[in-house]
């Protein structure tokens, strides 16, 4: 029809493109071979620069070529005046910029750029900073550029204030940016150090940062970057694990501990002043004529009044958000952590309810939440035990999935772990050197590797668990005082000759239930 524009068909276009590509490939391969020949011949001349330039501008990720280029540049540098060297490297910077346009995430390019700047007699850091800003405005998560920028900032001595403003700007344009938040967390302690702990941030600035984080997570509570930053803010000074416990078996000079009294109080000097700890010394047994003492120190960092009122306010903010977003996992988890920092026992019930919601809204991580919940429950039980000053530790029916802080249960004589969801007694269980009675009925325990060399263990009850093989019980043989063992309701009873095998394995056990 008249007036219609005739256009090449797709096949024609394809064919043309294919030919074009073939031509390019040929040129590339022959240039590459030429360069590699030159390098092996040890030629370091201008021509080498030109050839590598051609190749790198179409493929900036060819690391060998960058290496060769560095060799050539170092060679040329020796025979030139300072001005000329400056020019040589400046043109190199221009060239790298062109390569970065081809691939802004080329390892080779960025590395070469850092190197050129170290060789440059008078590096222009302002220009480099500008380049980084441009790159980051195109892709704010280009970590190559972030890395390079760190080098530039360090070399050019940009002030911390300016850098903080830089993060302000980046976070303002898009707050889903870990890099900026993280950078901020490194800048703040430098700019607003706390008077005593220089690696922390002063309270006044902290309040501003809390506000910034609130703005972010109220705007988008599903964005994790702000939550992580917030956790970092809260975490400064509040150890999420509230126990700082040290248990040590040590040699004491003979005679320093009387054998009559089995408990001595010791004064321990701590290098960190702001934590309050109770110390007690318990004597262990005499072994090989040495007095062995076990020093157990339990304590928890007490929150300062100001700190706790700040955290209280933060808890309120988070609760406010939770009212609006009852299903938000980040909010739930942060609330749990805040509650633990403030009053772990007082908030226990709420914490458990929040864990339940968390498991429902985030089923992918339900095991993580269960383990975390177990940890908190154990911590709470330890706290209670501490207050009551008893040696009996009961954790039955708490839905525990894992055991932790066993190192702090060194002095426990009776432990009850019945009706949980434990799968094993981990090797750390061997820390319970004073343990005499273990009840662990109604779990799903398969492995007993932690019941090993427990010198005072007399009675073990493992009813209704998943112990299948005789070999699983072998570690019990190392517990020399074990006399009572209850294995009812375990698959192991189906093993042939189980009675005789067991009495052979554990000759000291007198009361065995199968």
């Amino acid at each position, binding site marked *: 029809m008249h*007036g*219609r*524009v005739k256009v090449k068909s797709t096949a024609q*276009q394809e064919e043309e493109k294919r030919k074009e590509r073939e031509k390019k490939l040929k040129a590339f391969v022959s240039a590459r071979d030429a360069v590699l020949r030159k390098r092996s011949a040890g030629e370091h001349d201008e021509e080498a620069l030109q050839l590598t330039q051609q190749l790198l501008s179409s493929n900036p990720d060819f690391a060998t070529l960058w290496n060769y280029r560095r060799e050539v540049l170092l060679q040329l540098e020796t025979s030139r005046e300072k001005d000329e060297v400056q020019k040589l490297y400046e043109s190199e910077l221009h060239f790298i910029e062109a390569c970065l346009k081809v691939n802004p995430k080329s390892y080779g390019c960025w590395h070469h750029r850092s190197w050129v700047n170290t060789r440059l007699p008078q590096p222009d850091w302002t220009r480099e900073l500008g380049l980084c800003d441009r790159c980051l405005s195109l892709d704010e998560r280009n970590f190559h550029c972030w890395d390079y920028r760190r080098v530039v900032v360090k070399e050019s001595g940009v002030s911390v204030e300016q850098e903080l403003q830089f993060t302000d700007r980046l976070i*303002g344009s898009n707050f889903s940016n870990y890099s900026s938040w993280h950078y901020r967390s490194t800048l703040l302690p430098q700019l607003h150090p706390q008077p005593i702990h220089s690696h922390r941030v002063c309270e006044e600035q902290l309040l501003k940062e809390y506000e910034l984080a609130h*703005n972010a997570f*109220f705007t988008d509570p599903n964005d994790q970057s702000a939550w992580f930053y917030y956790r970092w803010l809260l975490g400064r000074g509040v150890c999420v694990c509230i126990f700082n416990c040290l248990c040590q078996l040590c040699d004491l000079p003979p005679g320093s501990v009387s054998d009559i009294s089995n408990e001595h109080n010791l004064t321990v000097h701590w290098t960190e002043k702001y934590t309050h700890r109770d110390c007690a010394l318990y004597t262990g047994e005499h072994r090989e004529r040495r007095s062995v003492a076990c020093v157990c120190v339990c304590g928890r960092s007490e929150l300062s009044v100001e700190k706790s009122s700040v955290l209280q306010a933060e808890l309120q903010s988070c609760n406010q958000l939770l009212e*609006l977003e009852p299903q938000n996992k980040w909010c739930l988890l942060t609330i749990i952590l805040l509650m633990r920092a403030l009053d772990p026992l007082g908030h226990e019930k709420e914490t458990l309810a929040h864990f339940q919601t968390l498991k429902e809204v985030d089923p992918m991580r339900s095991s993580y939440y269960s383990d975390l919940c177990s940890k908190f429950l154990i911590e709470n039980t330890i706290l209670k035990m501490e207050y009551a000053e008893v040696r009996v530790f009961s954790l039955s029916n708490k839905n525990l999935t894992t055991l932790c802080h066993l190192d702090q249960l060194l002095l426990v004589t009776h432990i009850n772990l019945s009706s949980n969801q434990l799968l094993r007694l981990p090797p750390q269980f061997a820390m319970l050197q004073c343990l005499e009675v273990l009840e662990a009925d109604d779990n799903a325990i398969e492995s007993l590797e932690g019941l090993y060399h427990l010198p005072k263990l007399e009675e073990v009850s493992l009813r209704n668990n998943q112990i299948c093989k005789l070999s699983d019980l072998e570690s019990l043989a190392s517990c020399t005082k074990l006399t009572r063992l209850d294995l009812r309701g375990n698959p192991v009873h189906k093993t042939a000759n189980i009675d005789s095998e067991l009495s052979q394995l554990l000759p000291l056990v007198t009361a065995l239930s199968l």
Partner: protein
Amino acid sequence: WQWLLVTMLSVCVHFPGLTESVIAAACSRVGQSVLHLDRRNYYAGNWASFTFNGLLSWIEEYKQKVQITESEQVWRSLIDEGEDVVPLSSVDSSISNLEVFCYARLALILLTTNTEHEVSEPEEEQHTSDISEPSQSQEEKDSQPISSPADPPVEVEKKITYQKLVKEGRRFNIDLVSKLMYSRGALVDLLIKSNVSRYAEFKNIGHILTCRNGKVEQVPCSRADVFASKQLTVVEKRMLMKFLTFCLDFEQHPEEYQDYTEKPFREFLKNKKLTENLQDFVLHSIAMVTQQTLTEEGLKATQHFLRCLGRYGNTPFLFPLYGLGEIPQCFCRMCAVFGGIYCLRHSVQCLVVDKASNKVKAVIDTRGQKISCSHFVVEDSYIRDEQRQSTAYRQISRAVLITDRSVLPSESDQQISLVTIPPLESSAPAVRMVELCSSSMTCMPGTYLVHLTCSSSGTAQEDLAPVVSELFHVSTIPGEEPSEVLWVMYFNMRDTSALDSSSYSLPSNVHVCTGPDGSLGSDCSIKLAESVFHHILPDEEFCPPAPNPEDIIYDGDGPQAEGPGFDESVNTEAEEEESNQE
């Protein structure tokens, strides 16, 4: 012009606005021969962009209202047996109530001293008087700051004078229609799809603002805005984000709004527990709907706004550099590249209708030529009242201001801002204001071009003057400090967008396109163009991508004529070349 007679036209497009240009380009692209006629000497009709001087002549023309004497005898002789005639209107009455005020001083005056070295021009040169109607000249003189030696030395500041505006007039591109392009609107999609976008450049709108209690402030509409907003409490931030997130896929959650489908959007917003603040933001600045708009429409509008965010920046809008008038011109260019023919200052007097089929078979132009065509596309303003079934127009009130400072000064003075101004009383219409900076290539450096638009309840001046005086400092008393507003023009434009083909009694192959509508986007015009195109050519694709120049195969006799430029001389040459090929 004799050659035109031998051309068998497929489509004749008359008075090309945006819709008509798109139809013309689409038809031409698929190989139809298209003749584009316009009685004016500029393109795009009411969609046109003018230089300041061009606008002054346009005002002039409006005042004179030139009547073209119709010579019925000329075309009578051209009508054959079995043909009927449908005359077209020759007077464009789509613009009314035009009024102009000038506040710029007539010459540069340094107020500090009376013996200034800069010579002020004599005062009698009040050229504004010759462009305004007599009834207005009094007002104008009042508003004209008089530079007399008695002026108190208020400030040492160089103000832009009227002379300067005229002298730099070519830097202005003043649109009669004020619209923005939604990043995911029908227009942007079409520009991309058809490759017409290569003919134009665009700038992102920088600020979305609103005016509350007389204060201009930023509307938090994107995630980053909400995060950075200082006016909202954190709970408001959450409520707003929650609501906006819901709007993004509101169709998935009908249970949330089904009880409100028959109720106004505002009530739904209240029910969603948005604070008064947030309701205003959403209703006026994000959805940009009225108090009466029903919930579903409001939700759709909000969704459209949100979907446009982030495609080209933090706001949902683009603006074409050199003004909105560029867009019809781009389509004209595409039409010309594919062989469309353009004639300015040339219009159609009447249509020749075949009585038997009741279809237009030809048109007779103002020079008495009969041009055959199989389809005729025309703008509504050319239709005489006899052919109308309904005359239910609406009107749009418009104001165009030249100012010398931004309504919300910020770090960058080169931002385009959209300001939505909620009505003062609930019955009044909301006013939409677009402030263009000089880097949008629509005004001279140091000035801002401000467009105000609302649906009319009275004349444009009645509707918009209160808003102008609320937002800008307009000096009323001579000798007071200089006005921010240098120049103002008010006018009403007819909005025929509510009309459709059933509103006219015309042959079926006459396609009437409505003029610009009052909405912010151009979706309405593009959708109309597409439906007219499919009516004309049901089996063809609407605006398929134009091929890249390197993929075009030229015939043995050398490359074809490039698309004609936009000035008339080149145009004629191209046309002649075209005709030689016939």
